[in-house]
């Protein structure tokens, strides 16, 4: 085992900050080149007109998950030293719901808002400001929230532990679900882009309310 390199002493504290910058630059480059700095494009995910968010996110999750699985199996990475975000069931459920509401209203998430902001989108700058203020105010009010914040702690619980299935089985399942999701995403986008639908009922086709029976055959 040689990795994580930082843990095994191959990367020092100063090099870690250089790595942070380089990894961040690559992260931002990927987000921007996929169009994830565009609120209009991201909002398309929620109206099923542009499923880029899903495609990018799940390609990334599957790639990193498979890479880590095989590097662990080959003995390159000591998986016990990779930090797995700890699970707190209720706060993460509630936080996720609140976050989703903000995501739908704002059209960007915290990381993509930074990309939107630096590429000239004023709405991205407003969202960065709002996010920062939201974190600041929540941080100031934290003593009130803390009892809830610490509830239902489950430690570094993973899906293989939860379902009591081997790591490889869960990895395979996530890949299978992602591939099925990609097929579904392509199918949905094809249907949304059919000109006959948008020409006949511009509003309904764009909005996704489709009582008309001919849509089913289209």
């Amino acid at each position, binding site marked *: 085992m040689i990795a994580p390199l930082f843990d095994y002493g191959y990367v020092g504290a100063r090099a870690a900050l250089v790595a942070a910058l380089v990894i*961040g630059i690559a992260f931002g480059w990927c987000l*921007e080149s*996929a169009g994830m700095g565009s609120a209009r494009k991201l909002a398309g995910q929620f*109206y099923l007109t542009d499923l880029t968010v899903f495609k990018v996110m799940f390609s990334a999750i599957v790639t990193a998950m498979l890479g880590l699985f095989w590097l662990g199996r080959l003995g390159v990475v000591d998986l016990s030293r990779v930090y797995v975000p700890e699970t707190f069931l209720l706060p993460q459920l509630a936080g996720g719901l609140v*976050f*989703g509401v903000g995501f739908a209203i704002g059209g960007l*998430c915290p990381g993509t808002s930074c990309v939107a902001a630096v590429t000239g989108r004023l709405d991205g700058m407003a969202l960065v400001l709002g996010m920062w203020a939201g974190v*600041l105010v929540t941080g100031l009010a934290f003593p009130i929230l803390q009892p809830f914040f610490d509830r239902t702690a489950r430690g570094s*619980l*993973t899906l293989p532990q939860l379902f009591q299935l081997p790591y490889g089985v869960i990895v395979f399942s996530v890949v299978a679900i992602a591939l099925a999701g990609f097929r579904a995403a392509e199918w949905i986008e094809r249907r949304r882009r059919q000109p006959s639908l948008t020409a006949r009922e511009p509003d309904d086709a764009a909005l996704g309310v489709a009582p008309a029976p001919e849509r089913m055959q289209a």
Partner: protein
Amino acid sequence: MTSRKPRPYANPYLAGVALGLVLLAAFVIMGRGLGASGAFASTAAGVVSAVAPSRAASSPFFARYLGGAGGPWLDWLVIEIAGVAIGGFLSALVAGRLRVDIERGPRFSPRARLVTALAGGSVMGLGAVLARGCTSGQALTGGALLSVGSWLFMLAAFTAAYLVAPLARRAWT
């Protein structure tokens, strides 16, 4: 640059695989993943600490960001997000996609869009603190690490977004 037509966006699957390799590099080099909301929290802690040092030090939330070797401003995630800003800017620059704009739907005013962006951001700030992360640190990173809480966060966030999106339709369509 203004005369050049912007290049189309990259194939989402290829961009996603590239992003996955960046995330994998973070695992291999640092033993941790990517993040975004943590950088907001760290810089907020930095400001509170500058304005009211005793208040920051005694806050169970902000104090966590003040203990690092480089302090809140040289936190790993703060440097990483500075990199995201640089990388996003450079990518848009070479592709001719830098443009001052307020992205919104055709029926929505620029001012209304700035208000929804500000409001949406504030709400996400609360959600990200409660959930201990956002789409980067929980959905993407924790998703790849198969963390139960991260998958719960991801499902909850997208469910809520799909439920609220019909109400926000005017902003985009």
